[in-house]
């Protein structure tokens, strides 16, 4: 698309997009570091996740400020309007992803190696899956590609299936040996957090699709794994 007649408008939209991608990169790092701190306990890793979360929150605030300014001074329309709305929604999802990752790192600290390594493999696996989802959806945003976004949207079903089977696995361990209930509860929350991060990725995918096409995807039509029966 060609540039605006007012060049500063184009620059402001580009700066907004750049901030968002930086925020996305940080959120991705947080997921990876948080999951690593679960399987390979390491105090500095945990601290770095906490520190990155502060950075992510600050970026969200900065993006909100940029958007307020853009809306007030530029009154964006059509695709520009969708760019700005998308940035607002995506920044919120990324902030939530940061919080959920921080919570995983916290729980890793609480576990402090007090769980069986084999059982923790599931966190690593799920972490890899959702981190790939986030990476893919950020790529879709960066290239404004609605097809890529759609693929992420559809692939959330796999994350949900991961979660369901991992949930049963952890539950089995807890039933077999009640001494693992404490650590098992933490692990279940971590898995739930990762599953929630997957949901935020699908939110972002929906927003990217809207940004590019102007059409809203209906969550009701998204392929979903069967509900977990507890």
């Amino acid at each position, binding site marked *: 698309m*060609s540039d605006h*007649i007012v060049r500063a408008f184009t620059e402001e939209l580009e700066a907004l997009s750049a901030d968002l991608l930086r925020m996305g990169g940080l959120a991705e790092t947080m997921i990876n570091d948080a999951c690593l701190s679960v399987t390979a306990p390491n105090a500095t890793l945990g601290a770095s996740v906490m520190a990155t979360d502060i950075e992510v929150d600050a970026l969200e605030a900065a993006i909100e400020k940029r958007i307020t300014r853009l809306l007030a001074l530029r009154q964006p*329309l*059509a*695709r520009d*309007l969708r760019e700005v709305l998308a940035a607002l929604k995506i920044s919120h999802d990324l902030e939530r992803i940061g919080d959920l990752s921080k919570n995983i790192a916290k729980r890793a600290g609480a576990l402090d190696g007090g769980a069986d390594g084999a059982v923790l493999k599931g966190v690593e696996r799920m972490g890899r899956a959702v981190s790939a989802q986030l990476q893919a959806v950020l790529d879709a945003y960066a290239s404004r590609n609605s097809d890529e976004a759609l693929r992420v949207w559809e692939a959330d079903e796999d994350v949900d299936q991961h979660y369901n089977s991992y949930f049963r696995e952890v539950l089995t361990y807890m039933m077999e040996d009640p001494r693992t209930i404490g650590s098992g509860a933490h692990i279940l929350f971590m898995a739930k957090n990762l599953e929630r991060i997957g949901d935020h990725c699908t939110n972002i995918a929906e927003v990217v699709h809207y940004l590019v096409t102007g059409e809203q995807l209906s969550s009701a039509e998204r392929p979903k794994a069967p509900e977990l029966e507890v």
Partner: protein
Amino acid sequence: MSETDEQASTSGAPPKGPVKVDCRSVDVFYNDKQAIFDISMVIPDQSVTAFIGPSGCGKSTYLRCINRMNDTIEGARVEGEIVIDGVDVNDPAVDPVLLRSRVGMVFQKPNPFPKSIYDNIAYGPRIHGLARDRAELDGIVEDSLTRAGLWEEVKDRLASPGTGLSGGQQQRLCIARAIAVNPEVILMDEPCSALDPIATARIEELIDDLRQRFCIVIVTHSMQQAARVSQQTAFFHLGKLIEYGDTETMFTNPANPKTQDYITGRFG
């Protein structure tokens, strides 16, 4: 998305409600120069339709076809049909003066007659014989000024000249003058471009009230104004209708890349 030179893109749902003005394959020439190229569109009743586009795109020319204002321009020629309630306005049997009482017009610069406020409004009803006596004429004047939101401000000085009012008041006076002859369609050619934001807001509020009764077509250079007051928007470019559709869709997700570029400030 392809370039649609042949046919205008449409955005969103087709216009709702009964059709008031049905324009079919309209061409306009100024001497040898063609200004409008084969534009067809239906304009619904009791709603506001906005024409947008860069200067020289033909939106004002097209607007002026609806009440044959182009007749007054030397060398101007209109082809095609503009049908209002089943009658082509260009039919030789149509009296342009009567037509213009049914299709009123408000211009960019407020242009009150150099007469009293009262006579500005009373002029039309008098020449069209709409009032039998003074009392009835008084009623029309009060009613028109009230509907234009000006009555409270001028009721104590109806005898003072209309040109002594502020710009915004003058424009509302012109709108009152247009509605005094019971028109069916009101054409507005950039009615707010000479007004400050407060006066503009008053006119926009008035337009919103008037659409309960009239078919309103407004040409505006302000995209925000088109978005605020209209239910349908038509985008013109180089004498062609590029896209016509419901206003909300036009401003959030236009179908044509040219519309997109224009409303986001990428050319114009």
